[in-house]
């Protein structure tokens, strides 16, 4: 502690501050046009392993908000985004949920990415009747569908929770029917990453594939984060499968398909919406050729709005790729924005009244999104049962079959 030295540091700091800030123009006070501000929250992992996927969600919401502001979709209001990092952990999720609930300007939330985080976020949101739309959760318990599997009655656990993706018990069987009936797979190997999404999807797939008459090998598991899957592949190879279903996300799926084919096991890999990403084909390269992935809704490449989204996203120069859930996040944000436009149009509301109204408006939503038409049932699940199987052709996912799940 030598005060003179501190003076020597502090004085230039003060002068420097003045010099640096001296240039500039007088700011107009009072804001632009008397517009009030409403905020859409985002809860997703923005740091760590899953940050690329989480940031894809965040950026897509950001894009939706910017476009809505340009088009003045919600008249008299400027929309902003408040993105919170849940670090893919349930307890952090509860904290950021409380933070968003406490911020009175927040009238809707997109997220979270992980089902386990959703289970701590949704109760807090439901308590405040703050609408929450997940672009990626597929776990059956989140909307009470778990009871259906075991033969009980479905009860909605979280009154303000919605999702725009299919739950595992729809996407998995749809993929299985395609694998068995269209690809004519006989001996199917199943691998998943032992995470909620991957396992749920793989188990639903296995059940349906067995029912449809295929031989399903004993399920193998890999660890998310691992890169060397040779032991699992060797084990599978000895059992001579002709098809592989992978429950999980694209980072591991792309490595798996590469190593599969290098090891001489040249069978197609199929995944869910967690695999249906341009990143998958980018990383796996030629090895991905002929692989399949399913996703909810009509083919995105046939809708002009979907193409426009991809173009706009690229033009915005975000640091992260769209990822598998960007399009769903974009739709989720737009559903909230449409609900806001509807709720605010009928007189000036704010606070809890507005949140209640927005939740109601989302429940009644009927929105033409880039992933198809979006409506919700009384449990918060999307009513869309149209799914598409994509196949990799010349390094791109192209629609192979679109059908309604029965």
């Amino acid at each position, binding site marked *: *502690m*030598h*005060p*003179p030295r501190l*003076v020597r540091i*502090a*004085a230039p*700091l*003060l002068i420097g*501050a*003045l010099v*640096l*800030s*001296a*240039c*500039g*123009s*007088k*700011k107009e*006070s009072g804001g632009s046009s008397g517009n009030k*501000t409403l905020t859409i929250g985002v809860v997703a992992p*923005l*740091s*760590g392993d899953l940050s690329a996927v989480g940031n894809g969600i965040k950026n897509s919401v*950001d894009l939706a*908000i910017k476009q809505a*502001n340009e088009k003045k979709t919600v008249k008299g209001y*400027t*929309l*902003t*985004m*408040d*993105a919170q*990092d849940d670090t893919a952990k*349930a*307890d952090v999720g*509860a*904290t950021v*949920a*409380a*933070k968003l*609930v*406490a*911020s009175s300007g927040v009238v809707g939330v997109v997220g979270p990415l992980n*089902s*386990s985080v959703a*289970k701590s976020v949704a*109760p*807090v949101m439901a*308590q405040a009747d703050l609408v929450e739309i997940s672009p990626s959760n597929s*776990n059956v*318990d989140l909307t009470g569908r*778990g009871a259906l599997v075991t033969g009980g009655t479905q009860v909605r*656990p979280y009154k303000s929770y919605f999702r725009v993706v299919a739950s595992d018990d729809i996407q998995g069987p749809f993929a299985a029917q395609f694998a068995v009936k269209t690809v004519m797979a006989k001996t199917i190997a199943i691998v998943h990453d*032992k995470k*909620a999404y991957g*396992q*749920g999807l793989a*188990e639903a797939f296995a059940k349906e594939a067995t029912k449809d008459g295929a031989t399903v090998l004993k*399920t193998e598991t890999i660890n998310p984060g691992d890169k060397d899957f040779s032991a699992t592949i060797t084990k599978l190879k000895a059992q001579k499968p002709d098809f592989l279903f992978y429950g999980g996300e694209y980072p591991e799926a792309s490595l798996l398909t590469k190593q599969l084919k290098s090891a001489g096991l040249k069978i197609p890999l199929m995944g869910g919406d967690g695999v249906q990403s341009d990143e998958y084909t980018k990383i796996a390269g030629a090895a991905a050729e002929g692989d399949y992935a399913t996703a909810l809704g009509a083919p995105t490449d046939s809708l002009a709005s979907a193409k426009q989204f991809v173009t706009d996203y690229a033009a915005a120069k975000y640091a992260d790729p769209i990822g598998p859930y960007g399009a769903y996040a974009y739709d989720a944000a737009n559903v909230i924005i449409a609900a806001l436009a509807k709720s605010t149009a009928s007189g000036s509301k704010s606070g809890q009244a507005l949140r209640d109204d927005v939740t109601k408006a989302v429940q009644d939503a009927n929105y033409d999104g880039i992933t198809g038409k979006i409506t919700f049932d009384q449990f918060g699940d999307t009513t869309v049962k149209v799914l598409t199987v994509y196949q990799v052709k010349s390094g791109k996912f192209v629609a192979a079959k679109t059908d309604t799940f029965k």
Partner: protein
Amino acid sequence: MTSQTIPEARVRSAPDLGVLLTGAGALLLVGSALLPWAGYAGFPGKMTLSGYPGGARLYVLLLALPALALLRPLPGRAAALRAAANVELAVVALTVYFVAYAGGGFVNVGGGVYPAMIGAILYLVGSRRLPTSEAVAEGVALPDASWRFPVESLVVAGTAGLALWLFVIGLGMPSSSIASGSDLTLGPLSINDVANSGQFLAYVITIAGVALVAGRLGLLKSLTIMTGRHPKLFVAAGFIAAAAFPFTQNGSGESLSIAARIGVFAAAAVGLNIVVGLAGLLDLGYIAFFGVGAYFGALVSGSVTSVTGVHLPFALTIVLGGLVSGIFGLLLGAPTLRLRGDYLAIVTLGFGEIFRITVNNLDGSAGPSLTNGPNGVSNIPDLALGSFNFGANHTLFGIDLSFQSNYYWLELLLLAFVMTSFLRLSESRIGRAWVAIREDELAAAATGINTTRLKLLAFALGATLAGAAGTVNAHVVKVAAPDSFTFIESATLLAAIILGGMGTVPGALLGATVLYLLPEKLRFLHDLRLLVFGIALVLIMRFRPEGLVASKRRAREFHDHETDPAAEAVA
């Protein structure tokens, strides 16, 4: 310490000028705090209002207050005021810079900025002209009189209140930011983030400054003497202050949610402190015991996703959760405790991972059905105590309380219990035996201490406390899932007690607060959040390797070479 740099003659010839300048500077600063600092709306702290010292102006005000010491020639006065002036200048400069930057130029600052800058410079120059005396500030010892007790109690309780108040300011600071809608972005940071970071930086500097000034005036020493005389009062006042926290929140649950999380992890950290801090057993898998409690709590909570379908009363759940976890501690400890040091560390790391992998697999397909695997046990119902539902918002004394306050109080109780256990244990025969084992296991064994049994006991007791904390946390978070019990969580808990200071309760509390609050308060940095957090960890260890609140003995070990009396006073 400064006498060699300031010419003696000048100091002696112009004592009155120093007092005058310092006083004038302080008055200007106080005045400036009541004037608007920003010429535009939107900067945190209502900087456009006059007559209201909001935002960073509060810190300016706070740091001008030590000038009251000019009224009496207290020992250490000059040193304290020099410190105050340094920090004041930094806070003023920082705030002016950020206000101007976020406003788009210096032309957008408010009228209060000018007196503040002049005041800060006068304050600085004046404080350097104050006569210095060789006398080092001693703690103020009050005479033994009938009024001593009430005065000291008041001071002790007031300190607890002040600490809470500072904490509230810190927690309440805007940390989330609104990113979209404005095109003004600086790389990954928006203007709003810049404003928030300036505000937070000023806050941290001010707290450090206040501690420094208090140390130089001998106030910290007096406080130590007084709290030492009334330890129970201090703890009680602290807890009452903490319990009053929800009433300051206007029905919002944001800060409470963070505070509750800090509380539960602080409780776990205190438990870990028994194992690492007292008994010296390096445990890198401690979160597993927390997890055992959490899963136990979730499984008997009556949740629809629990395979047991059992619903036990919560009080029983906590006790049983702790016990089950303690039994796990015994089972794991028995074969491994003869390992030493880092070998024990990796074995505990291994057990932690085995626990996580196992609960991830016990779902009926990769193992027996118990935990729902990666989905975890979710939809844990809210607690209810008679007709009092923990999941509902309440109103008490006309103040709105969010439902998070119920859980906050529950965790405060848990924390109180864990702290009491720790203090009782550490002062008992057992506690002294643990410390003996930590210092030298062979010597301890030679004095007749049954080291194996005592190490096992430390392991089991630590596990029990973690288990109890885990059962509570499962009800707060409403889900027990494997993702929450990774190695990183164990490392963070360990970091909390090392950072705070090993073997002390305040250390564990402070460490947990820093480690769980810092990432929350750094949210305005968005993508750079963890980057800055990593640097902060490195820096804290670099400058206080013995932890923020070290036991006296450890502090002396590592700061002996520093002869600066002020540094010692703060330490």
